[in-house]
């Protein structure tokens, strides 16, 4: 619990407030606001990016009419940069429809539950060594635990809609998200075994001392791919988007939601993409380390000033963002290239392919650690 404490001390130092309770509230509210803003901005940018990427892949132009901040529309990359903002405003001003037969309370409650999961997860996500809301010593475990809270919300949303299609979507989503958490956890386990810490800072520090974790051993390399494919499934994106498969279930558990509460689903979906990409970056791709530090071998040392120039508190977050954007781009690339799997094939992939491989990985990495 470093950062919130620091903030508390900082506010106490400058603000003329005696009551510590109020200062605590402020110290918690500021990071919460920042996290919310990060999520909102992330969704805005990611949606725009996704539209442009898909348009590029499909020989279209994508949004190109709505300009903002002096940017004019047109056949440029920033042609429709105000489009997502306009969409967001449209969503927020839309009528909030609750079907007559729906379970009213649960229906109102469910989107916030789903939103809660990525919101809480952001607390433990670092952007740089100290750029973090709260630096837990159980970071990875916390991320895994809190991000699965969303499943409850999905089930509630599907059930409350009183719509058979929604229940289909919710059941599929729950089965899928719970199943795919296992290979994800097992893949992250490798890093925990090797580093001996659950804290993300320690894991990145290990990578700074040795090499990026993806190059730790052949098993870590495999684990990265298992992790990445599993998180694509975990975030319900194509080719694993069977819970909301638009050509089958229309929109799955989101079908009956509209307006702001639907926007929350959207926000959480893109936030989840960001979270899993950040975790992949931190654990496997060297976090805020520059690409010049992929391998830190004695004899091949680059000069220290050179490294310090490329990995510092300014460039560090930049590297994180670059790596994360690349991973998000790959996810979008998947989505606009692949068809969708069927529900049984999806389960087959998880239980009969990924989990055995991930388990074997854990065993072999333990042996590898004993030998080397």
């Amino acid at each position, binding site marked *: 619990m470093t950062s919130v404490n620091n903030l508390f001390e900082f506010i106490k130092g400058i603000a003329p407030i005696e009551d510590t309770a109020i200062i605590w509230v402020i110290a918690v509210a500021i990071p919460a606001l920042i996290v919310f803003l990060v999520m909102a901005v992330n969704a805005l940018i990611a949606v725009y990016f996704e539209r442009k990427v898909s348009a590029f892949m499909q020989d279209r132009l994508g949004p190109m009419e709505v300009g903002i901040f002096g940017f004019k529309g047109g056949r440029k990359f920033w042609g429709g940069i105000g489009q997502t903002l306009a969409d967001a405003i449209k969503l927020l001003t839309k009528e909030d429809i609750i079907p007559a037969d729906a379970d009213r309370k649960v229906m109102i409650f469910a989107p916030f539950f789903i939103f809660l999961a990525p919101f809480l997860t952001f607390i433990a996500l670092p952007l740089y060594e100290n750029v973090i809301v709260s630096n837990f010593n159980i970071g990875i475990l916390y991320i895994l635990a809190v991000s699965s809270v969303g499943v409850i919300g999905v089930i509630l949303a599907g059930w409350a809609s009183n719509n*058979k299609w929604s229940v289909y979507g919710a059941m599929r989503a729950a089965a899928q998200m719970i199943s795919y958490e296992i290979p994800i956890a097992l893949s992250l386990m490798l890093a925990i075994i090797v580093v001996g810490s659950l804290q993300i800072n320690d894991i990145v520090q290990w990578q700074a001392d040795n090499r990026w974790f993806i190059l730790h051993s052949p098993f870590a390399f495999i684990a990265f791919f298992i992790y990445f494919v599993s998180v694509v499934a975990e975030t319900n994106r194509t080719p694993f988007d069977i819970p909301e498969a638009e050509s089958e279930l229309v929109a799955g558990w989101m079908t009956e939601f509209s307006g702001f509460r639907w926007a929350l689903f959207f926000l959480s979906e893109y936030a989840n993409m960001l979270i899993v990409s950040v975790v992949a970056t931190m654990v496997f791709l060297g976090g805020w380390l520059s690409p010049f530090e992929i391998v830190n071998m004695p004899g091949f040392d680059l000069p220290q000033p050179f490294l310090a120039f490329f990995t510092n508190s300014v460039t560090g977050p930049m590297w994180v963002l670059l790596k994360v954007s690349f991973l998000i781009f790959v996810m979008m690339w998947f989505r606009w290239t*692949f068809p969708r799997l069927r529900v049984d*094939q999806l389960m087959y992939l998880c239980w009969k392919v990924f989990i055995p491989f991930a388990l074997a990985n854990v065993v072999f990495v333990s042996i590898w650690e004993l030998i080397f």
Partner: protein
Amino acid sequence: MGMNTEYLKELGIIKGDEMILNMGPQHPSTHGVLRLKIHTDGEIISYIEPHLGYLHRCFEKHCENLSYEQCIPYTDRCDYLAAMHMNHGFVMGVEKLMGIELPERVEYIRIIIAELQRIASHLMAVGTFGLDVGGITPFTWCFRDRERVLDLFEYLCGARLLYNYMWVGGVSHDLPKDFIKRTTEFLDYFETQIPEYNQILTGNKIFIERTADVGVIPADVALNYGLTGPNLRASGHSYDLRKEEPYSIYDRFDFDVVVGEGTHGTLGDCWDRYYVRILEMYESIKIIRQAMADIPNGDVHEAIPKKVKPLKGDIYTRYESARGELGFYIKSNGKNIPSRVKMRSPAFASLSALNEMAEGWMMSDVITILGSLDIVLGEIDR
């Protein structure tokens, strides 16, 4: 879920843990306003009952009140994705009834147009099938190329979807000045595009997993259900009216009948039905090239009768449309208004086999199978 499940069980409509699910009439993947009443046990389908008629526009009743020429625009609206085929099929029937000899040029023009239409229609089928199994990109690619065919048609007759182009005894307009040149350009471009579809869809592992071995229908069962066209040929039956009973001047062209081979699974599965359509586009290209090479000159309005008034009699014509065998049963009682027009709709027969194919498969497969049948509701409901 399902408040009245107990009641339905008591009536014996559903068994055990079954649930009734309504797919449509508003559903993105039913290819129109089709309602499927699906009995499911979890994800497994036990019975599908299609409910038709949401797009019924009384085509046959209209025809009994309109003159023959006025019927042609109505045929457009039946299969709006292959409107030229509908025109051609109907007009052929009336011409046979009246015994009209067509000028060579008209026959050639009709075949070029019909094969272009087949390409457009198959592109739609392939694209929406990709969409049904979850790939959105192939859909937009196919639409991009279909657009070019529609542009050609617009250049030809001014309309992009519903043409009213083929008239009894001729066609409405002669080919525009450089139509042949533009069509050649399109074909040259299009031939390079088909391998792209194969890259993104045909050979994709997930696509094969989703479609191979799914919705298998053996040739004899398919025939018994009246499946025709690409759907029957995918089951390995080489029945193509263009070869079997060459109407118009199809006997002059050299092309192959594409049949399914069961490359990635059982013969007659969804993958075969999809791939037959891809290969048929190559055959259409072949036919168009040959027809364009030796198209004669002439007047396309030469044989158009002053008055379309067949003698008393009946005729049943069959036409190979993009979806299969299109039949027109026309009864004339000697007036300028038909006494009865019946359309044998190929997709109607295809849809009747849906339950046979989908039983025992999962929810997602129903959509795959429906997509592979390439139905058009306008033609089913008429």
